[in-house]
């Protein structure tokens, strides 16, 4: 990941701040930084979103294609995540530099979405055993300012909220199945993604833990707990990352915090998305994308 050089004194400063629940930018331990979300930013996609979490900037485009279902899931569609670490974010990502980070993020997303209650894949089925929608969720990291996992999951959820799939009519004529895909931009189906998870990363700094760690704070942490949390507070994926180990009791504390934060994060996101949709075409665009 992007390297920030911190001296020991700076690390101690951050550590002591976290102990007193006051972080280097004045936040408490369970506060997120300023978050901007914008949906339908790309016209060539079925759904798109851009998330800016302080300095982290992420662009997600969802494209739906028709394909054949995999043999073990014949009545379901598929969702696939691809993360692209753009060299714009940091020169270290040039060439294959960002590949490890990209697979880490896409695997985590895949695991978090891999349960039937959080994202119903049956809604992507067109003809059982034969045709289904495959959702390609492409994630582009434009700027890295810490906490990539959380920001990515928020952007993915927002993009899925924004996704609409053209209506397909299936006609059977003398045993020949015919697919007719509507080209009317308003004849579309929205996805049911209300219960899809958000990822919450908890970084252990000293004896406490923080959510939404900035790049500097990420330097001071040896172990992170990454968890997928749904709006109901259930945990869909769990992962420890980093070279440090954790005490079982502190894992419990971190999970408790993660669940609490995740629940409200999901709620805030859905509220914001509903608000944006209510504004319709009158909304002002925030970012550099026009």
């Amino acid at each position, binding site marked *: 990941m992007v390297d920030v050089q911190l001296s020991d004194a700076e690390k101690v400063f951050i550590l002591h701040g976290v102990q007193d629940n006051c972080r280097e930018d004045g936040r408490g331990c369970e506060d997120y930084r300023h978050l901007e979300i914008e949906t339908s930013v790309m016209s060539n996609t079925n759904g798109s979103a851009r998330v800016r979490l302080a300095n982290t900037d992420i662009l997600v485009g969802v494209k739906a294609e028709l394909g054949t279902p995999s*043999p073990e899931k014949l009545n379901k569609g598929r969702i696939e995540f691809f993360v692209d670490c753009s060299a714009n974010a940091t020169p270290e990502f040039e060439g294959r530099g960002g590949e490890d980070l990209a697979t880490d993020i896409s695997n985590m997303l895949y695991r978090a979405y891999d349960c039937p*209650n*959080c994202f119903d894949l049956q809604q992507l089925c067109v003809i059982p055993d034969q045709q289904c929608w495959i959702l390609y969720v492409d994630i582009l990291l434009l700027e890295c300012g810490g906490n990539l996992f959380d920001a990515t999951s928020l952007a993915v959820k927002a993009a899925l909220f924004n996704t609409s799939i053209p209506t397909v009519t299936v006609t059977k004529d003398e045993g020949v199945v015919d697919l007719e895909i509507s080209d009317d931009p308003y004849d579309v189906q929205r996805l049911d993604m209300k219960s899809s998870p958000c990822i919450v990363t908890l970084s252990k700094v000293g004896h406490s833990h923080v959510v939404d760690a900035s790049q500097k704070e990420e330097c001071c942490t040896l172990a992170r707990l990454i968890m997928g949390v749904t709006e109901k507070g259930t945990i869909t994926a*769990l992962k*420890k990352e980093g070279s440090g*180990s954790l005490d*079982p009791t502190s894992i419990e504390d971190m999970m408790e915090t993660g669940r609490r934060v995740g629940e409200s994060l999901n709620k805030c996101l859905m509220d914001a998305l509903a608000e944006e949709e209510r504004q319709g075409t009158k909304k002002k665009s925030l970012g550099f994308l026009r």
Partner: protein
Amino acid sequence: MPTDSRRLTGPEETKSPYAYVKQKKKLQVLTGKRHDGRSPETLRPIFLKADVVSQARGSAYIEQDNTKVMCAVYGPREVGRKEDFSMKGIINCVFKYATFSCRYRRSYQQDSEEKDMSVQLLDALEPAVCMHKFPKAQVDIYVTVLQNDGSALAAAITCASVALANAGVDMYDLVAGCSVRIADNLVLVDPTESEEYKSQDDNPVNHGSVTLGYMPSLYQVSAITSKGEIEFEVIKKAINLCGNTSQTLYPVLQKCLNNSRFSLSLRFSLSLVRYHFCVQF
């Protein structure tokens, strides 16, 4: 692993016949009485042996009934990429299912699941290894699952930590892996393949699995992963059970290392000296 264009991979469009077999009702398997007669909290019998690959610096082989995993540790050697200079050592982990090890055939190249497993394995082992003891050098850990009958990651964690110790790499503690399957209010330790959580059979809430890497003498968790949608209280219970079960594995690991032919930590140190000597001249 690079693509080998010369390898004959067979026809592209083949499908395993198992995909078309009518599935037995999954929930039948998940009762308090397990099909191999174990109680929910019992592990399968374990066979663990160190020093199985003669040319590796250290190696180990583990059998949990029908789950068979072997691991070899090579190194220390020069770090491949020159820019990766660090005063800490680097561990490189490769987790691979043998192509014939699972119900479905695996490909020669690492798929995304195996890559994910490699990362999880690395996360599990890194906290246990004294990384500062081999600066500028790299240690390679290769794990191959020969036969998969469930809990392969847990077995791989245990096996790899024994192989590292067998190689004489300085460690703070061993790591014991344990996994559980959560099915409503039932928690099954060390699930077999038929008991394992699979996302394709529509599981309701509180169905999933948890794998834990535990350092038994430090009482620390070095890795934790979960699959499936689980409530907080249930996952907490599962983690505790995993920790306690891993603790019972510790004597097995110790005994295995005592029985291995070379239990000298000298072996690694000597090779480290030799490595740094070579680099200097």
